[in-house]
């Protein structure tokens, strides 16, 4: 086993320290969870940079280092081409989807499907998304188990169990806050490990030019050939990843929806996506792919012998000293845990919000639902673990892959048309998902007939990728055709749920006309005032209101002056009538709101207008 050859005791110590550190970090943040809003959305209080890091940690899965390094070894820098796709979805995400879910207080994808369409679409969406997410937890655990087996020699089930237990414990204790904070740490670790490896390699080769000259000519292009090779052609990768997968991450992935809802404001989503897509994603692309590029250069220099699959691990071991290699192993583990924890939290959110709360205990208290959410987190991790032996058999793993390929394009297309096209009808949405899924399932039976015409001359080897294009076109066509023969919902019924009505959603969120005048931030001192109890209102001086361009009744956000808390100590409140001059420089706040924000009396705060 590789670990018996590669790993040193110091590497295992570093890996163990990482496990203990992440678990402790996650469990510590359990104290910030007092209700389901905290458990699922972290209290909607976090800053853009924190969410950007956690998004990157979630999107880089356990397989990323191995998969992208393998592609980097075989095809060069075009292994990063999938990261070019994200930016084009940003306008739809920032200007349509996030305002709709945030201002309409949509807590799950199925809830949106019912609000925009009807109940039967929601039920179908709930079943599909739960199967999709639970299967993904299992697949992630299998992948990590296999990685641990390769690196440490553990049985696959042992590695999967250790990781599942660690993830389940800190998600159960801390919910979304623990997920976000551990993902921040894990995002930093995986970026440092990957980029550090790249920097070390450049130093080893004697400079970037020398490294670059060791790569074959065909490895130096941003994109692979348009329709070659069949398993790594540009058009295949683009159809599957650029259109179907990236769209799914942006619009139908419950874990990302919850992450967007954890932001302190919709305005912060703008900075978050710019940081995520233009800064962190390219760095992550280099971090996950560079192992393959380095291994290729080392092989060409005659310093290393490796195959594509082992390129990341072998290149890392060649370049790293004992202990540092353990840090690289920790980064691999971080990539898995930061994806699995988000999936576990997402399954819990859908179970509680779309099954337990509406159908089983609708009248129960929030405390009861929080308990159910915690138990569901443990159960989701347990269910994912139970799927490990099933997925290890291969055929079921492939079946889940086929299921995912079959349902992702139809659900994505239903949401895409639902948010952009007012005329799109509930019957069409149902048909898009149901008929679209059936058509894609049939494409596995008659691939040459259904997918073949879209293969761009690449043949059956490309069908895995081109099926996504077929799925999008088939589901989209069904949706458009059925829409023209069925009755749409009245615009008044879908206000705030479709493009063109985002400002209506803002009004509903605020309960009044939004104040969008540009304003600054006011630095004040929090002072507890029991007379404000139960009002969710703060009293600030007129000068502070002027600085923020705010008026009484506007929604404000008060945050600890220490920005590096990322919003952990903060609260959303409403502006009351301005204070008299004797209260200058103070923000009067109720003890309950101060408790929610973790403010002490005399706390220095920064206040800004949200809406």
């Amino acid at each position, binding site marked *: 086993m590789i670990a018996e050859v590669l790993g040193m005791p110091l590497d295992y110590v570093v890996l163990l320290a990482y496990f203990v550190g992440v678990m402790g970090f996650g469990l510590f943040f359990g104290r910030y969870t007092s209700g389901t809003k905290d458990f699922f959305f972290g209290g909607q209080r976090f800053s853009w940079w924190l969410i950007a890091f956690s998004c990157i940690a979630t999107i880089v899965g356990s397989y990323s280092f191995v998969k992208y390094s393998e592609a980097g070894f075989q095809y060069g820098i075009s292994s990063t081409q999938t990261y070019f796709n994200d930016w084009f*979805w940003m306008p739809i995400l920032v*200007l349509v989807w996030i*305002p709709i879910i945030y201002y309409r207080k949509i807590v799950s994808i199925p809830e949106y499907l019912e609000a925009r369409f009807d109940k039967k679409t929601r039920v179908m969406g709930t079943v599909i998304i739960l199967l999709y997410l639970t299967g993904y937890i299992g697949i992630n655990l299998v992948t990590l188990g296999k990685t641990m087996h390769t690196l440490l020699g553990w049985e696959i089930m042992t590695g999967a169990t250790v990781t599942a237990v660690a993830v389940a414990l800190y998600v159960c204790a801390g919910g979304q806050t623990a997920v976000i904070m551990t993902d921040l740490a894990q995002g930093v670790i995986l970026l440092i490990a990957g980029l550090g490896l790249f920097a070390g390699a450049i130093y080893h080769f004697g400079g970037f030019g020398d490294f*670059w000259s060791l790569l074959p000519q065909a490895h130096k*292009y941003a994109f692979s050939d348009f329709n070659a090779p069949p398993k790594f052609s540009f058009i295949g990768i683009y159809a599957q990843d650029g259109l179907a997968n990236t769209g799914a991450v942006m619009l139908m992935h419950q874990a990302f929806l919850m992450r967007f809802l954890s932001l302190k404001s919709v305005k912060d989503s703008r900075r978050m996506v710019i940081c995520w897509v233009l800064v962190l994603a390219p760095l992550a692309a280099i971090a996950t792919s560079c192992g393959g590029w380095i291994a290729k250069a080392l092989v060409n220099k005659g310093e290393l012998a490796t195959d594509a699959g082992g390129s990341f691990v072998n290149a890392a071991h060649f370049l790293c000293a004992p202990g540092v290699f353990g840090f690289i192993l920790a980064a691999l583990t971080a990539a898995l845990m930061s994806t699995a924890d988000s999936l576990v939290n997402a399954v819990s959110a859908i179970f509680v919000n779309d099954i337990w709360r509406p159908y089983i205990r609708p009248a129960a208290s929030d405390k009861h639902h929080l308990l159910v959410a915690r138990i569901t987190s443990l159960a989701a991790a347990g269910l994912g673990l139970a799927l490990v032996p099933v997925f290890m058999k291969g055929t079921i793993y492939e079946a889940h892959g086929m299921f995912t390929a079959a349902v992702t394009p139809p659900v994505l297309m239903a949401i895409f048309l639902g948010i952009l096209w007012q005329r799109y009808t509930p019957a069409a949405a149902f048909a898009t998902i149901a008929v679209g899924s059936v058509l894609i399932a049939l494409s596995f039976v008659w691939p040459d007939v259904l997918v073949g015409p879209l293969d761009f001359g690449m043949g059956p080897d490309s069908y895995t990728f081109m099926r996504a294009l077929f799925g999008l076109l088939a589901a989209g066509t069904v949706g458009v055709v059925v829409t023209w023969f069925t009755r749409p919902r009245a615009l008044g019924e879908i206000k705030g749920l479709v493009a063109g009505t985002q400002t209506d959603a803002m009004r509903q969120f605020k309960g009044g006309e939004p104040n969008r005048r540009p304003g600054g931030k006011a630095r004040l001192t929090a002072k507890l005032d029991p007379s404000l109890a139960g009002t969710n209102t703060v009293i600030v001086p007129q000068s502070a209101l002027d600085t923020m361009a705010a008026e009484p009744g506007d929604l404000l956000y008060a945050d600890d002056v220490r920005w590096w808390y990322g919003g952990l100590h903060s609260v959303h409140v409403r502006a009351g009538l301005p204070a008299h001059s004797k209260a200058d420089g103070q923000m009067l706040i109720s003890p309950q709101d101060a408790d929610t924000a973790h403010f002490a009396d005399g706390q220095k705060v920064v206040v800004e207008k949200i809406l």
Partner: protein
Amino acid sequence: MNMLRVWPIVCEFGVGLVLCAVGIWAGLRGGYLDLKVSEDRRLLVAFVAGYLLLLAGACVFTFLSPHWAEGGTL
């Protein structure tokens, strides 16, 4: 010019342009993206700048980078 290397850029940034245009149109419709507000204007500029930045990156690593190290140095 090897068109097999050019078509990916045309496809990626052509379809990308359509997606961006749809999103911006959906923002402008109903007034949510209000170009009278400076923040919204900055956002629009960021979308365009990001698009051009990625396009520039794709062009550099298609038309220039393969020839960088032909002489062994940059």
